[in-house]
């Protein structure tokens, strides 16, 4: 009778053996099954959700209505709305099997390390085996992560992104990353920086490394690039290839593109439109493809600077007849316009005329400038910084 009823409800024959309980007669078990089905329906679960719950946790039939209600109440007290309650119970019906004390002990621990109540409950409910684990297990997991260099806020961030970090073995993951050639602190950095990384399987990581190698990089280069930008593991290989090919359209050779992406891996994170718009800014300022190519090669990270900032620097240099610096030494564009302006004004007032023959004076290291001209950067900015210019203008107007 029980078997026929469960099958007619939509369950598999195999579930019947998992449902049986020596404490109950078949007749009693049938009554309980009907009660539970009706009760779950009344609580708002769809038939599809009920079937998922029973398949995952057939012992739901052994639970009382009161126990089920108690868990629903707990979830609502923690801020879950009706839909979230249904989703959570369907995802992890094992919640019905455990006492509130057992659940609260772990939740309170998660809250103590920085998760909100809702995030803590989510962490517990989104993983099938989570309720079997003790608070000590969770505590040991967090302590292990901290012992290898993760900071508490990084752990919280990873848990929020994907709670599997707590329920899976990170020790094994670390060992596998080391076998791939990464150092321990690099593995910690990559996972802290890109919190979704731990959700990417080791097989996918290995595959991605091979795919990037197939684009012309050697293993140590892939390691350097992925430590700098771990998000690479989630980029499509086709998309990476497309960006490399786009850089080639600027007239750069394969080797040159490789150099650029090794120095400035972040360029791969930009869309082709963003890179193109930066290049167009240089074109609008009158630079040819050949010149742009030279600038990027000498200073690959020029592509990371904001367009406004680069434009401001070039226009200032143009205004003082030193635009040649852009081609002679693109790297000097790193220096802030404020400092370049302050040094230029200071030297001019000291009688030093700056031309393309001696422009290096403007871009000396801070110590070298101080040693040669006896003025610190802070003093220069104070004397010739933007605010000071305004003050001087106001003073002139007053006179």
């Amino acid at each position, binding site marked *: 009778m029980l078997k026929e009823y469960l099958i007619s409800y939509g369950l598999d024959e195999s579930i019947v053996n998992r449902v049986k309980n020596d404490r109950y007669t078949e007749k009693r078990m049938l009554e309980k099954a009907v009660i539970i089905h009706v009760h779950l329906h009344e609580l708002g679960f769809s038939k599809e959700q009920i079937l998922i719950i029973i398949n995952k946790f057939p012992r739901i039939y052994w639970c009382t209505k009161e126990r089920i209600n108690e868990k629903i109440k707990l979830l609502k007290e923690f801020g879950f709305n009706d839909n979230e309650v249904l989703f959570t119970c369907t995802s992890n019906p094992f919640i019905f099997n455990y006492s509130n004390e057992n659940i609260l002990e772990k939740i309170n621990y998660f809250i103590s390390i920085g998760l909100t109540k809702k995030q803590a409950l989510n962490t517990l409910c989104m993983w099938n085996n989570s309720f079997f684990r003790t608070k000590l297990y969770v505590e040991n997991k967090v302590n292990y992560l901290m012992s290898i260099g993760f900071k508490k806020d990084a752990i919280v961030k990873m848990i929020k992104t994907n709670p599997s970090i707590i329920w899976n073995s990170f020790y094994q993951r670390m060992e596998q990353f080391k076998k791939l050639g990464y150092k321990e602190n690099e593995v910690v950095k990559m996972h802290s920086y890109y919190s979704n990384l731990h959700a990417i399987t080791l097989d996918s990581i290995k595959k991605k490394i091979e795919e990037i190698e197939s684009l012309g990089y050697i293993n140590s280069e892939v390691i350097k690039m992925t430590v700098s930008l771990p998000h690479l593991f989630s980029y499509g290989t086709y998309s990476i290839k497309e960006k490399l090919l786009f850089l080639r359209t600027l007239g750069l050779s394969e080797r040159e593109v490789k150099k650029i992406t090794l120095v400035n891996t972040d360029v791969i994170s930009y*869309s082709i439109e963003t890179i193109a718009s930066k290049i167009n800014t240089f074109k609008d300022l009158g630079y040819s493809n050949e010149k742009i190519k030279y600038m990027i090669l000498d200073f690959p990270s020029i592509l990371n600077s904001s367009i406004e*900032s680069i434009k401001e620097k070039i226009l200032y240099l143009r205004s003082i007849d030193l635009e040649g610096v852009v081609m002679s030494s693109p790297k000097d564009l790193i220096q802030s316009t404020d400092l370049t302006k302050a040094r230029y004004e200071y030297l001019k007032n000291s009688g030093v005329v700056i031309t393309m023959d001696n422009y290096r004076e403007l871009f000396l290291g801070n110590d070298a400038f101080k040693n040669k001209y006896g003025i610190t950067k802070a003093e220069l900015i104070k004397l010739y910084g933007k605010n000071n210019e305004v003050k001087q203008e106001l003073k002139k107007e007053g006179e």
Partner: protein
Amino acid sequence: MEELFQWNLNDLDIKEMISINNEILNLDREEINDIVSILKYVNCTDKQIRNILIANPNYLSRCKSDVIDLIKKLKELNINDLNELFDSNPHFLNKDVFEIEDYIKNEISNGKVLNDIIDELVSNPFIIDEMGVL
């Protein structure tokens, strides 16, 4: 995410930032304010903050404690104009302390003295990434 608008970023900027770092979509107000407040702490102007966020949207996903440790390390090395350093190379903010230490160790083993290494680092904040690339 609305917090980003206060840095003079427009819809297009934010769209572009999300295309680089889609984790931005999951960040709440407190997380964004927390990580940006570090930039204010090192005296970045509003303009510099805008530049940094546009050029390096991944910064928003950095852990606050890692960035604070990085700043402590740089101050320990007597690098004080951090707003300019980060404005020159916004991606410097994605470095961990061990990367700075490894770089310095490597340069010292090549015969350089600490003051020169630091001066070079300040003059060219991209130097760490250039290391070992021909």
